[in-house]
């Protein structure tokens, strides 16, 4: 049985194709753009799958458009992370517009979880806006944050207020690297306290687009205390964990139905 798992997020649409036995045969990541449904349709129309499942922010639109099953990002990330790292006890996903922390029980079962609420504070989108305010690309900002020899405390987590704060600091002549460092630290600090609230212990799987940011990975490793594993460091794109987990959920239901 071949399964296509789609994770339709605010910043990217991620696809994973599973072959027999649940092996990843292909994966793709595309910008959501202004029409994520069209992007998703592009993947669906490649064909070759027997079962389709969607997760992410656009899952319900996908259910209507493609008449497929859906699963939440929480379960999808938990399942995907536990399949990649069977010893995983917790998952952190920092995506384009939301952050999820999940504490896992045996077999990747969700024990508790927390999501940021309606605003995009401390997510990938936040980093994009701040990079623009600093005149960096995302990669440059991460590199400068890592290289910085000092930091500036950023007090706002609201994307709009933090942008004004950063602009103010730049105008005062503050070192951009130190600001970049401060921004990453403020996200890491918030994320670590969220992990504590759900009682997360290591090994922690750090997935999602922001897990590709080496500065964030390092700060989460420093702050969390337990072991932190990143899919990208062992050969699986960190961004496709949700799509992979969704596909595995569909496979499991299909097997249970047989």
């Amino acid at each position, binding site marked *: 049985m071949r399964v296509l798992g789609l994770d339709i997020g605010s910043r990217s649409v991620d696809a994973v194709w599973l072959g027999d036995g649940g092996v990843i045969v292909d994966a793709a990541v595309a910008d959501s753009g202004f029409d994520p449904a069209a992007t998703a349709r592009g993947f669906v129309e490649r064909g070759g799958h027997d079962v389709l499942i969607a997760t992410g922010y656009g899952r319900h639109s996908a259910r209507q458009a493609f008449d497929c099953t859906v699963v939440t990002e929480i379960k999808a990330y938990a399942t995907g992370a536990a399949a990649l790292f069977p010893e995983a006890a917790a998952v952190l996903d920092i995506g384009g517009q939301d952050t999820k922390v999940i504490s896992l029980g045996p077999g990747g079962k969700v024990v508790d*979880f927390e999501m940021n609420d*309606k605003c995009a504070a401390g997510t990938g989108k936040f980093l994009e806006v701040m990079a623009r305010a600093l005149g960096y690309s995302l990669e440059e900002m991460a590199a400068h944050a890592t290289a910085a020899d000092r930091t500036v405390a950023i007090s706002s987590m609201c994307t709009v207020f933090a942008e004004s704060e950063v602009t103010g600091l730049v105008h005062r002549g503050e070192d951009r690297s130190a600001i970049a460092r401060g921004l990453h630290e403020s996200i890491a600090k918030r994320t670590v306290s969220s992990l504590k609230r759900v009682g997360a212990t290591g090994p922690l799987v750090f997935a999602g687009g922001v897990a590709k940011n080496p500065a964030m990975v390092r700060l989460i490793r420093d702050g969390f205390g337990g072991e932190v594993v990143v899919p990208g460091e062992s050969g699986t794109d960190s961004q496709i964990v949700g799509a992979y987990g969704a596909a595995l959920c569909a496979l499991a239901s299909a097997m249970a139905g047989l």
Partner: protein
Amino acid sequence: MRTIEVSDSTSGAPSCARKGTQVSEESAVVDYHPMWEELGLDLPTHDALLGAVGQMYGDAFLTQENRPEGMGYLDFVMSEVHGLRVKELHDFRATGGKIVGTFCLYVPEEIVRAAGAWCVGLCAGAEFGYDEVERIMPRNTCALIKSFMGFELTNVCPYIKESDLIVGETTCDGKKKAYELLGEMQNVYVMELPQMKRPQDVAFYRAELDEFRGKVEELTGKSLTAETLKASIKEVNDKRRALQRIAATRAASPAPISGKDALLATQVAFYDDVPRYTQMMNKLADELEQRVADGVGVAPAGAKRILITGTPMALPNWKLHDIIEKSGGIVVGEEMCTGSRYYDALVPEDGETVEAMFDALAEKYMDINCACFTPNQGRMDDIVRMAREYNADGVIDYALNFCATYQAEAFTVEKTLQAAEIPVMKIDTDYSAEDIGQLSTRVEAFLEMI
């Protein structure tokens, strides 16, 4: 005078009109605009509000499958929410009757009715007129307060306008200050509610009831007597008994009624005509009991069963129930003022003197477990008991943002439920639609998890 007549038709849609006239035809042609204009409503804004609520109602309620026929009555009441019922109040006042508007369970309807007035619970469940409110109140005021203030400031609530007296209470700081401002526009009287439940607090509240009695008697020019009070205690208890019957059927699996419909039944209890409402809810309860006997339900037997606890959900706030039930879960109970706190306890009916009955009222009302009290262990016990009685798979603790008491108590609720090994999720929100996507994901994930 137009009255709503309860029909015995089995269609579930009551015929409501002048005696002998079919309402459905008539209501289509009745234009309430002259009445609304007379009340001082802002007609275009009010039309916009009714349009929005009508759309919300259709989307949340009329899309449900296999609804009990008895819900036809509540559909009708809602379709006439600012029409026929307001006309009834209007006509009652035209004959000298008085209307008392309230916001809170701690204002006893029994006393209002025993002194010859009618009681209406005022709406406070939609985001409306906030820009006007924020000119006179802080932005970080809870949605419930902003809502009723917004309704009045934009002149869209006919119930406030029909109220000869609005009774506030001191359940929170936001409301206390809001009543001062509302008092500049309407005839407002504030009852003081203690914050603890010691004997001296009950005695204090008992004295407040005496004051309140005097206030209502002064308003109506009629005296409350042992006879009228005994009758009103019985009448309001009957209403609660009907709601208890409905609630009891929700323990069954599959549940015979959706949480949304059950919540609506409670919300309507606050302003509908008491004997008529009681009769119709007993009919609904008959139907639900039959459904339980026949194993008929509104959700698949495997649907995850959720108990909701927290801040009241005033009309037309159906947001959380809608999200849960559209996510495949079913709400089986509400530990809230628009739920069990309203109907679980009855006032003893054996009192013979006004004094004895006032004692009984004071004890009953002071036994409601609102988060404005400290300590509030009774609420913790209620939540755990209800989760078990209604066979809930999990509890969602719901608080409006900036509701300090419920938001703070949420931590105790969480701890209590964890100790009882009942899954719990905490949600802080308001009436806006902007977080529905995020909330749906959280609710769906919670349903998957439990």
